């Protein structure tokens, strides 16, 4: 399914903009898909344990703000702050589990906290990323564009980590039947913290890469990621409940959602409708899932 959606979007893009088919074209087109792919994997982890993360967009923004404000001044402090962010994510998971809180409310509340911190760090858009980050983000690999390589590698790593390993099965089991997992002697609390820590890590990677690609940041740079990441997970074949996820599908889903955005800029719609068009595309893309799902049955 995600493959079909991707193809459906790629064909008109290549038709409208034939230059996109070249090495540089693909690089440009897919560059921005990589941060979203990381954010989507983070969202997928949270959805895997039957929660939902409405804060990932503001979290990625905060990371981008940190990497343009603190990282250039002190690498040590910068990485310390990013580590703190990951730990806070883990604590958020622990809090949600221990107090059995609705993840929607906690993450929505936390999104205000992340946004607040971002504004404190970077009241106005701007900043400058460290040179090593710039060099990494703009690294040109021979023959195959870097984004395609990263997407493949990260998709495969998460696939083997979650779908083919013993502990991965435990983590997915929490979404399926948490009680059964607990009876089997696994600590749900530990598993949830690990899931949230991993999600935080992916969020951090997303933010660092995003700032490297855009070379600057603002407090709301990744605000759209919350919606896009949820869409990417669902489009990639994941389900909201039951621990059913698909890491490779999620990466493809993220690429599809990015291309949908590029497609919008190619067809040049008025700025009034830019926001709304995202919503419409989301609904259309996800309703396509219904058609294929019914065929599968």
């Amino acid at each position: 399914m995600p493959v079909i959606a991707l193809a459906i979007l790629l064909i008109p893009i290549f038709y409208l903009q034939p230059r996109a088919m070249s090495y540089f074209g693909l690089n440009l087109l897919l560059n921005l898909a990589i941060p979203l792919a990381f954010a989507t994997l983070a969202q997928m982890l949270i959805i895997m344990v039957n929660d939902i993360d409405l804060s990932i967009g503001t979290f990625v923004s905060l990371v981008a703000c940190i990497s343009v404000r603190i990282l250039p001044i002190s690498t040590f402090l910068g990485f310390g702050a990013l580590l703190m962010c990951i730990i806070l994510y883990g604590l958020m998971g622990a809090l949600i589990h221990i107090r059995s809180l609705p993840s929607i409310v906690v993450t929505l509340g936390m999104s205000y906290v992340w946004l607040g911190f971002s504004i404190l760090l970077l009241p106005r858009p701007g900043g400058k990323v460290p040179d090593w980050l710039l060099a990494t983000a703009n690294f040109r690999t021979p023959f195959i564009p870097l984004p395609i390589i990263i997407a493949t590698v990260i998709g495969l790593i998460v696939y083997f980590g979650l779908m083919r390993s013993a502990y991965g099965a435990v983590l997915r089991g929490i979404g399926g039947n948490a009680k059964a997992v607990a009876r089997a002697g696994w600590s749900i609390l530990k598993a949830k913290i690990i899931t949230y820590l991993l999600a935080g890590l992916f969020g951090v990677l997303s933010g660092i890469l995003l700032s490297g690609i855009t070379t600057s940041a603002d407090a709301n740079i990744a605000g759209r990621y919350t919606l896009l990441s949820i869409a990417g997970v669902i489009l990639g074949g994941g389900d909201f409940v039951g621990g059913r996820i698909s890491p490779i599908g999620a990466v493809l889903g993220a690429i599809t959602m990015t291309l949908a955005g590029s497609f919008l800029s190619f067809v040049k719609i008025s700025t009034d409708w830019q926001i709304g068009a995202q919503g419409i595309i989301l609904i259309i893309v996800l309703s396509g899932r219904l058609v294929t799902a019914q065929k599968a049955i």
Partner: protein
Amino acid sequence: MKKFLAQIRNQTWALSFVGALLLWIIIIFIRVKGASATLTMTLNFSVFYIIVGIGQMLVITLGPGNIDLSIPSAMILGGVVAMKVMNEVASNIPVAMLYTFLTGVAIGLFNYCIILLLRIPPIIVTLSSNLIIQSIAISYGRGLRIYPPDSFTEFTVMRILGIPIIAIVTIFFSIVVAILLSRTVYGRSIIAIGQNSKAARLVGIKVHRIKLITYTISATLAAIAGALLAGFSGGTSLDLGSEYLLAPIAVVVLGGTSIAGGKSNVPGIWGASMFLYLLVAMINTLGIGEGLRLAIIGIIIVGVISFSSSEKSR
């Protein structure tokens, strides 16, 4: 006394009233304004939270997965439609309110039809329609800022014995909703669906019809609240999203309604809304910057929710 305290702890909604009371006292101390003036302001402002909160509460009561994230843009569009139709002329108010009402109904029907026909989860549908409706509001409301007619603004701030009329109307409305939930087939159906959707369908409840009505009520209340807010604040605002995305959900959860559905609490919405308004007002009076303000509001909301729900689960 101990028993009384224990009882309060068992009732999350009572806790929210206690919280609101505490904040009210704090604000009276740090502000020069009098106690009754603060109370009037609180009622006047929190009414908007209450109206949309009741809509959100009904939707959330429908059970897991049901949530309305299109409230902010329904409010924006409701406000824009009302202001445009009124066109600064007082005699247009009834027609304008009718159009606002119909706008809300249309948004609600749209939301649930997409949810039902395309089988997309409500959270994604309402988040998407939030974007779509926002675009509609932006392109429809383009142009000069339109002011509400004076009489409409006067209505939204009018008081009897210091109590705003819209607060009084909202009290009556809240009572109606409470009766609706506990005494009518429709209300009992919402709760039944929230507790066990399959069982509800098996006993013959028309699940989809009830859900359709509920999503429509939520969007309609949001549109009306948006129109009133536009009148109250002297014009429409296209930037309600940051405040009214979290607020309706927060007041529902703080007010003791179960996010898992099947259990709702109308008085709790009142306590939680006043608490939330006073919280924001208190932080505003401290005169701190936007960044710190947002962070503090987020931390307090997460903190209060973790505190109150831990009491509930024991």
